[in-house]
């Protein structure tokens, strides 16, 4: 079996974890020719309840479609973090929205707490593209899917409005991710420069 890359995006309804997952998955599937399975879990709440998307990426056939141990967890809410921070691979990475998630994790997992919404606000004027900032970070940091593929997938999903803002957020995330990969810590002012 070739490597099985497992990404879990979790937060609340309205935070765009499903759209984020979709763009990530389509990028890998349509633009990089990988096998990809995406699943999502719905809550009874119409809006605002817990939302979760899981994307499994592999060169091989994918049997079990859900995340067993995540390579990457995106936690956009405290609840999401608390539920899932344990189900990680060795050397897994957690990217958490610093404005919403607190708490410590010990062990072999790296946690990046980042002001994703703040970044989104800075680049797009609204916090709504935090999901794409996060996708960019994941791409920049772990290289699962290339920024080019992500951009193409995003363009295909958003033919009209929202496209430009989301692309900006994505690029900002990519840059951030690359910085982080180099071990840099980014101050808010640097952030502003980056984006």
């Amino acid at each position, binding site marked *: 079996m070739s490597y099985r890359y497992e990404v879990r995006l979790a937060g609340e309804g309205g935070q765009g974890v499903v759209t984020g997952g979709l763009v990530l998955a389509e990028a890998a599937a349509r633009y990089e020719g990988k096998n990809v399975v995406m699943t999502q879990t719905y809550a*009874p*709440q*119409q*809006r*605002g*309840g817990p939302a979760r998307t899981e994307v499994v990426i592999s060169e091989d056939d994918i049997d079990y479609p859900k995340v067993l141990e995540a390579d990457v967890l995106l936690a956009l809410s405290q609840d999401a973090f608390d539920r899932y921070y344990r189900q990680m691979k060795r050397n897994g990475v957690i990217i958490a929205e610093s404005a919403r998630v607190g708490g410590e994790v010990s062990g072999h997992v790296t946690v990046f707490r980042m002001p994703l919404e703040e970044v989104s606000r800075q680049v797009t004027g609204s916090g709504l593209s935090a999901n794409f900032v996060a996708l960019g970070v994941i791409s920049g940091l772990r290289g699962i899917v290339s920024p080019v593929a992500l951009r193409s997938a995003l363009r295909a999903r958003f033919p009209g409005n929202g496209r430009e803002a989301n692309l900006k957020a994505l690029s900002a995330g990519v840059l951030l991710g690359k910085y982080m990969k180099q071990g840099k810590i980014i101050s808010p002012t640097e952030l502003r420069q980056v984006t």
Partner: protein
Amino acid sequence: MAVEKLPPLQDYLRTKKKFPTVWCPGCGIGIVLGGVIRGVARLKLNKDEVALLSGIGCTGRMPVYADFNTLHTTHGRALTFATGLKLARPGLKVIVVMGDGDALAIGGNHFIHAARRNLDLTAIVVNNGIYGMTGGQQSPTTPLSARAITTPYGNIDQPFDVCFLAKAAGASFVARTTTYHAGEVERLVARAINKKGFAVVEILSQCPVFYGKMNQGQNAVEMLRWFRDNTSTQSVAGKIRRGILVDQDLPEYLGEYQKLVGRAQEKKSVRKRMAAGASK
């Protein structure tokens, strides 16, 4: 109306457990819940003597929040459970909240039969013209040519007039209002509860997330404005009538059943007496 003071609302809510509600921001169902609770409070009913039933749907989630005897039944069938409960416990005030799909699509038959039977129930139809819970499909009250997930080319089914249907089926009390007229909700619900017989209150409500979004992208505020501007307590052309549309005194089922029990027992004792006489 003199302003009458109501007990604190939290007395009627399961505040510790289930809030905030599952409903989307701006959804009208919460306003209806408030109206129902104020209606009950206004009547100073003991919470133990109130049962709140629902079917399935966003509206169906209402009972969870109210500190009464609460029963979340199956889709469309709440009135049948209510019928059994009321007959078994005549002392309970049985209030049934239903969505438009719940009450009139899958539940339409129970609705007309409950009206016909005229058992002392209070039926509240939260009419948002859409299936909220399942993601925005058309309902039997979706207006002609409106969009829904299952009417991407515009709705071609005539909508029901809920109140007219209730009347034709035999309801004792039929009223209509909207979530914008929240004070009316409270008053009409109280009237309906007090009415002996089957009482229907239709409340036009907003589902901004599906109905609003798919139809001119209206938000909650715009939808409430629409209710304000397009309804009237008078018969006005082009406006939807609000207020009490039917209020008639018909034989109520429980009362009639009590009389029937009397007849049955009399017949039985006659039969017994005859038998006793015969065996002499």
